[in-house]
């Protein structure tokens, strides 16, 4: 049985008149040993692959995608239901959902091998078809993998947004862009909204190993439909709720409101040995010096067969003081993740400025990103930054923009800039 615990990191002391309360809530699951089959999964698991077969995939990319899918199909455990959707202007279920027993795999391999590339990219139709499959198994852990190589058709923008909204809470979706002709922000919008990761596969040859990692993560989930419910006192306002580790995902706009003082944020499925960090910012009615307030109560809720179970709880406090030594201290988890968010924003804005030819601004922003990555020990992001800028002094963020940056490097930086460095134990 997977168990959860929640822990709060914050400086609860506020100066007189202060209204903003910040806290990092670490949620960790434990119980299922690594590699062992999940112990408690009454609803089963469903895994779907949504593969782009638009005209631009023709050639090396489609061949790589076929090879990757064939390898993944081979690896799917027999207790997992799986299906494959081929997507272009419309979409086709080329492998209908069924348990991954040898007969079904054989049929699936045959269907994948026959795929041809043709048509435009209308991702809303792919997601809609996946939604219909996942709705057949509402109690299962429901995970999808979407692969595309191009930008979504302009005429599909409205339908795509509407379909994403329908899919939220029904399934999760990891997104992969192959090559460099796809739109990072467009694909990230899908991945973030459907609580999945988004990444670039620049070289088609890398696709097989990436797909296998996505499958391993999907079948490793042992509980599904976990949400964080945040109670705040009367008169309070939640400024934001972000997942800040392992990657930045702004959940603020995804909240539902089960009752007037409570907002519920989806976190999707969890494996038995995961840890994620969330940053809450709450604006409250300020108290007087000496007053103590429960500024928020974060409750982890699991929903199974429409039954809600509270599985962990953490309290966010506020205490007003006239002791400046207490109120001016910035808690190190809050400081670290505020920095990581700043890092991602600097990269995003820096790349945007660079693409529009505003070089001074781009240099300043990417320099700042280099400095934060250096200070926080985010080596993965620092490495991606080095492909885009020449670093004279990382500590001060003194950089020069590189000429001849490959599109692949710029896109990799943009896609992975939201990957955060986990805070080290004190």
């Amino acid at each position, binding site marked *: 049985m997977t168990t959860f615990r929640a822990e709060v990191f914050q400086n609860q002391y506020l100066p007189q008149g202060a209204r903003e309360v910040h806290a990092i809530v670490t949620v960790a699951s434990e119980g299922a040993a690594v590699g062992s089959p999940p112990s408690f999964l009454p609803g089963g698991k469903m895994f779907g692959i949504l593969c782009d077969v638009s005209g631009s995939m023709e050639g090396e990319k489609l061949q790589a995608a076929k090879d990757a899918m064939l390898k993944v199909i081979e690896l799917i455990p027999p207790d997992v239901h799986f299906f494959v959707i081929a997507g272009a202007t419309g979409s086709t279920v080329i492998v209908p959902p069924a348990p991954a027993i040898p007969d079904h795999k054989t049929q699936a391999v045959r269907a994948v091998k026959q795929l041809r590339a043709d048509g435009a990219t209308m991702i809303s139709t792919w997601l809609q078809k996946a939604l219909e499959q996942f709705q057949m198994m509402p109690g299962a852990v429901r995970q999808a993998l979407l692969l595309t190589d191009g930008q979504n058709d302009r005429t599909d923008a409205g339908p795509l947004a509407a379909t994403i909204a329908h899919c939220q809470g029904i399934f999760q979706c990891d997104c992969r862009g192959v090559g460099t002709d796809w739109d990072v922000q467009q694909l990230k919008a899908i991945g973030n909204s459907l609580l999945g990761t988004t990444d670039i596969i620049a070289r088609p040859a890398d696709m097989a190993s990436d797909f296998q990692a996505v499958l391993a993560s999907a079948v490793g989930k042992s509980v599904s439909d976990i949400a964080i419910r945040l109670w705040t006192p009367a008169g309070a306002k939640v400024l934001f709720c972000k997942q800040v580790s392992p990657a930045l995902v702004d959940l603020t706009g995804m909240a539902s409101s089960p009752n007037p003082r409570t907002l519920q944020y989806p976190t999707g499925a969890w494996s038995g040995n995961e840890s994620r960090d969330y940053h809450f910012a709450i604006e409250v009615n300020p108290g007087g010096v000496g*007053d103590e307030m429960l500024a928020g109560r974060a409750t982890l809720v699991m929903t199974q067969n429409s039954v809600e179970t509270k599985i962990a709880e953490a309290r966010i406090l506020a205490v007003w003081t006239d002791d400046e030594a207490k109120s001016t201290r910035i808690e190190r988890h809050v400081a670290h993740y505020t920095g990581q968010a700043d890092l991602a924003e600097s990269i995003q804005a820096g790349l945007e400025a660079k693409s529009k030819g505003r070089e001074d601004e781009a240099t300043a922003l990417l320099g700042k990103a280099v400095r934060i990555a250096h200070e926080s020990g985010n080596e993965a992001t620092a490495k991606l930054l080095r492909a885009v800028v020449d670093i004279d002094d990382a500590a001060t963020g003194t950089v020069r923009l590189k000429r001849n940056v490959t599109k692949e490097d710029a896109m990799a930086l943009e896609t992975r800039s939201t990957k955060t460095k986990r805070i080290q134990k004190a």
Partner: protein
Amino acid sequence: MLCPACTADMPEDDIYCEDCGAPMTLDAAGPLCPKCHAGAEEIDSDGYCSSCGFRRVPHERDHIEIELSPNMAGVSDRGRKHSSNDDYLVMRDGIIVVCDGVSSSQDAMLASKAAGDAAADSIAAGKSMQDAIADALAAVVALPVARSDADAPSTTIVAARIGADSAEIAWAGDSRAYWFGPGTSQQLTRDDSWLNEVVSRGVMDEASALASRNAHAVTKWLGRDAADLEPSVLRFEYPGDGFLLLCTDGLWNYAQTVSDLEGLTGEPCDALITARTLVEFANAGGGVDNITAAIWIRK
């Protein structure tokens, strides 16, 4: 209609109590949230209000016990309904001062403390009881006023200088002094209340005055808006053995007559135990107000 929090009598259609600010509709089943006046059912097991989030932070004045000797001791308690103890108790050798900060005024806690400490200092310095009350008044008037003067910090007071054969007692407001002895028990002070004022002036008889919602409104207090205060002063010669009780209305509202109180105390042999008994009695009855009881036993 009585306020469920402080029992002040309010017009039927009032939504909030003019005295304590609590909603007239609240459930007075237990302690209230000091910030939003939510009822007891809103307070979680750690003391946080599930409505506004605030927690009542314990205060040193929530419960005070002073024991100078087995013959002289007192207790001051927050009660069950108020979020703070605005009563104040000073006991020194031969001196008792009891003050009841007016809850509807600003900083009632500061007012009662300022008055109590100043009066005790003056009595100890050998000043007259009139001067002691004047000094207490000056101390309250000197407090900063955060908002308008209309509800400037205010408090009642009853003070006693205890001698070998007699006690000098001064008061303003409805905090009381009693003497209890075999066949000699009596209330020494006379409340400065609307009830007493209209009855003594012959405006109303006691029964109809008691029926008014103003009956127990105080007509004298220490505060910026009572600068021309004339305190009541008396000297009481002890008629024999017995004991003095100084207390606030948080007690006597639950024991309206001298014999009610006498029935509770019996013949005290330990002043602190008797003071505790009285405070516990008021709390058991509901504890809607702060409760203070101070006792000196003459032996």
